[in-house]
């Protein structure tokens, strides 16, 4: 009889075992998966923090915040276990230890706003003593479905990269919708952790690689994440990483996350890699002379001062000339001009660049075989008040500058050149710019040869200066040489006047074959 009962027990055991095997198989097939619990992720973060693995701690705390952003001094986890849940504060501590002070400050302030604490205050006080070098930052963008993000630019590096989240698209798998009891209609959320906004200056060149890091999250679990079409590996926290090789200008970054229900979220970003400093240029000085109001035997000019002022304006606004000495009309006496050259010889250093622009009368004396600038105080044909081209060369020779470009829109200025030095063959390349800048240069660009030039021209400018200004405005690249500029203006000037503009090295002034490089402001 007892054996009979034992047989029944055995039978019951089999039934129960089969029941649990079915349940086990159902779970094993991952039919039912959900998201992680915030306190597990938070606890991981605390463990990383204890282990001084601050980067991993940041990832965990960001993840915890994404799961449950509400801080609490007594947050229920499981059972009767309540914890102090302050992910912003802990995130701030991790950032603090990573040296990311602004992020630390932002998160301490967030935490302090929700749960004031001595710890927040302690760190915030410490952070007040630290010089802030980083730019302010917006929180990492949390992209939700069907959201067209505000056109908010997220500065990656102060100068070089901007990341602009543009559009988020969510595609719900209609087939899955029909067959699923738990209607997960949402595409995954994509949280971009990197590129972040406060990493300081980062030089990015053509071959530079931008690290993309983020988290995809979805209540149904994440199946795949693609970065620009390539399948990205995801870790247990659905954290994905990818390296993006940046090209100059705008780069498109498309992050596609697919959840286990085949709902898709696509985030599109534009990462702009701005052109980077390929040369380390010193200061840019300009000395500008423009004279209309001549007297005595010298006729008044119409456009010289306007040409000079427009040149000053262009150099100041578009090219970042930090120090410009300008002498107009009555200021442009012989003494003042020479005095200005003396000042420049004291001020300009070997790393600096100097552009001299002269717009006024010029003269050529056959008996001396010399050309001259005519200052405003010259009232006769006597050379007493003139400044000879050889004097100009002497003054230039006395200025210890990396590059000097003399632009003279005056008669008979071609006399400045009397010789040739080796010049790098012009080409449109960064290498040409770098090589040209590396060698000292003393060039002059003149509106004509040893000949009279026209004062009248277009739009209240001389023909030469008209095209000079035109191409200063229109040169497309950030860097271009004076040779490149001259090549552009030479033909228009010849075609529109009787002048033959010249561009040659200044003799005996220390030219080494380099080029004056214009660097346009961005």
């Amino acid at each position, binding site marked *: 009889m*007892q054996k009979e009962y034992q047989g029944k*027990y055995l039978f019951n055991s089999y039934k*129960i075992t089969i029941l649990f095997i079915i349940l*086990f198989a159902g779970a094993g097939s991952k039919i039912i998966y*959900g998201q992680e619990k915030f306190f597990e992720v938070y606890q991981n973060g605390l463990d990383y923090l204890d282990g001084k693995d601050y980067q991993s701690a940041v990832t965990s705390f960001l993840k915890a915040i994404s799961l449950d952003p509400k801080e609490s001094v*007594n947050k*229920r986890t*499981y059972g*009767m276990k*309540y914890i102090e849940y302050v992910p912003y504060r802990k995130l701030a501590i991790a950032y603090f230890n990573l040296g990311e002070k602004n992020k630390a400050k932002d998160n301490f302030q967030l935490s302090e706003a929700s749960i004031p604490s001595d710890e927040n205050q302690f760190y915030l006080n410490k952070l007040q003593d630290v010089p802030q070098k980083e730019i302010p930052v917006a929180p990492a963008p949390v992209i939700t479905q069907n959201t067209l993000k505000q056109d908010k630019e997220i500065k990656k590096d102060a100068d070089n990269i901007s990341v602009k989240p543009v559009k988020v698209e969510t595609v719900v798998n209609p087939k899955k919708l029909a067959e699923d009891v738990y209607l997960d209609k949402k595409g995954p959320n994509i949280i971009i952790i990197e590129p972040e906004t406060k990493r300081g200056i980062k030089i990015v060149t053509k071959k530079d690689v931008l690290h993309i890091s983020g988290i995809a999250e979805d209540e149904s679990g994440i199946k795949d994440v693609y970065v620009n079409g390539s399948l990205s590996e995801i870790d247990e926290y659905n954290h994905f990483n990818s390296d993006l090789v940046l090209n100059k200008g705008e780069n498109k970054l498309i992050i596609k996350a697919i959840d286990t229900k085949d709902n898709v979220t696509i985030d599109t970003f534009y990462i702009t890699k701005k052109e980077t400093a390929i040369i380390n240029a010193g200061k840019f000085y300009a000395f500008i002379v423009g004279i209309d109001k001549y007297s005595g035997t010298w006729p008044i000019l119409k456009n010289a001062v306007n040409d000079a002022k427009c040149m000053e304006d262009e150099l100041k606004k578009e090219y970042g000339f930090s120090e410009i000495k300008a002498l107009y009309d009555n200021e442009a006496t012989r003494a003042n001009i020479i005095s200005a050259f003396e000042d420049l010889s004291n001020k300009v250093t070997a790393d600096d660049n100097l552009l001299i622009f002269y717009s006024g009368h010029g003269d050529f004396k056959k008996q001396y075989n010399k050309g001259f600038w005519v200052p405003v105080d010259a009232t006769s044909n006597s050379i007493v008040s003139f400044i000879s081209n050889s004097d100009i060369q002497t003054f230039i020779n006395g200025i210890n500058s990396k590059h000097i470009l003399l632009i003279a829109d005056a008669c008979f200025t071609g006399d400045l050149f009397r010789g040739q030095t080796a010049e790098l063959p012009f080409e449109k390349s960064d290498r040409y710019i770098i090589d040209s800048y590396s060698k000292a240069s003393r060039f002059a660009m003149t509106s004509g040869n040893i000949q009279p030039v026209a004062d009248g021209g277009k739009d209240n400018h001389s023909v030469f200066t008209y095209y000079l200004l035109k191409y200063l405005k229109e040169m497309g690249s950030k860097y271009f040489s004076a040779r490149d500029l001259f090549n552009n203006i030479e033909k228009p000037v010849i075609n529109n006047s009787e002048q033959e503009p010249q561009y040659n090295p200044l003799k005996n002034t220390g030219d080494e074959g380099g080029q004056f490089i214009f660097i346009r402001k961005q």
Partner: protein
Amino acid sequence: MKNILFLIIVLFLSAPLFAQDENFNIFGAGARAAGMGSAFIGLADDATAISWNPAGLVQLVRPEISVVGKLNFAQYNFDYPYNPAQNTYQSNNFANFLFGSIVYPVKVSDNQFSFGVCYQKVTDNYYDYTFPNHSSKRTGGLSTLSGSASVSLGSVFSIGFTTNYWLGGGSFTYTNIDPTQNYSNNITKISGINFIIGTLFDFSSLNFPMKLGLTAKTPFTLKHDYTYTDPTEVFDYYDNISMPVMIGCGVSFRVNDNLLLAADYEYRAWKNKTDVLGLKDSYSQVISNMSDMNENLNQFRVGLEYSIIARNLVIPLRIGYRNDPTLEASSSVNNNVTTYDKTEIGDILTFGIGASFARLSVDAAYEYRISKDRKRNFDLSEYSYDYTAKYNNFMLSTIVYF
């Protein structure tokens, strides 16, 4: 001679099972659960889950230790309608160590594993009655030593197993003013192995704050070995109890951070489960049904927990109810034939309070049981009596979080 002794044994074991736990309403331990009417299968989120639903252990992220003690207050009334002089009021108060467990969770890849061990005092046989001409005293009880393992398969589903090794001991001593009638039974060995298989579906990770638990306790034979002693005889006998399959399901629903509701249903298949009594040196056996009415038992348990969340302290308040079906029934005896008419089902109200700190949680529960009157009628003889029992338990639990 042995046949006479055997009759004594049978009479003894057929006597009313006074101790409350002998009804084998076996479930887990813990004052938190007790305060909620012992509705804990669908919750099972602390270290006591080994005894409730081992699948729930995966909810623990950090190791935990739990310790549970119990104070028992029992009052019994024996009313003899045809012999009022025999009316007796008895009271037994005693304490015991009810439960202790250690749980250690481990996370491997996406899966949370938890391992635990526990000791549980399943039944406590203690009573001590004193009548005018005699006294009866019983001690000891059943215990389990258990090992548990559970794993999460995804963040919703988890499964767990507990293996229970049954053990225990105790004695019964009858003392009469006539010393020749004195006798005693000493338990020399208790043995048995069974399993608890539990599953838990935690839908909170799908943003639906509900949990569903299913458990099955496997049937097994619970073996007792006894030694009988009286002034003239000493012999050994056994008592094999067929323990039934017990299927439980529970649901818990967290209304908000403060309020939690829970309900359990447990089915115990006592029908046709037997108690086999026999002499060690004989093939003779007496087999009787464990349930007087030979029926399966159903238990319902409901409870709620409301937590007052302060800055550094959480105070949970709990209330619950469970019914308490027993294996006994009202009966009458005519010509030595016992007739049963109705299973005794008690009602138990529970109340609980606690205090939770960062590393420690202390809970207390009070269980107030009212047993329905049970009549034992022996042909309206002087031995006929009505029996009423009231049990009140106070339970204290501590859980330490690491």
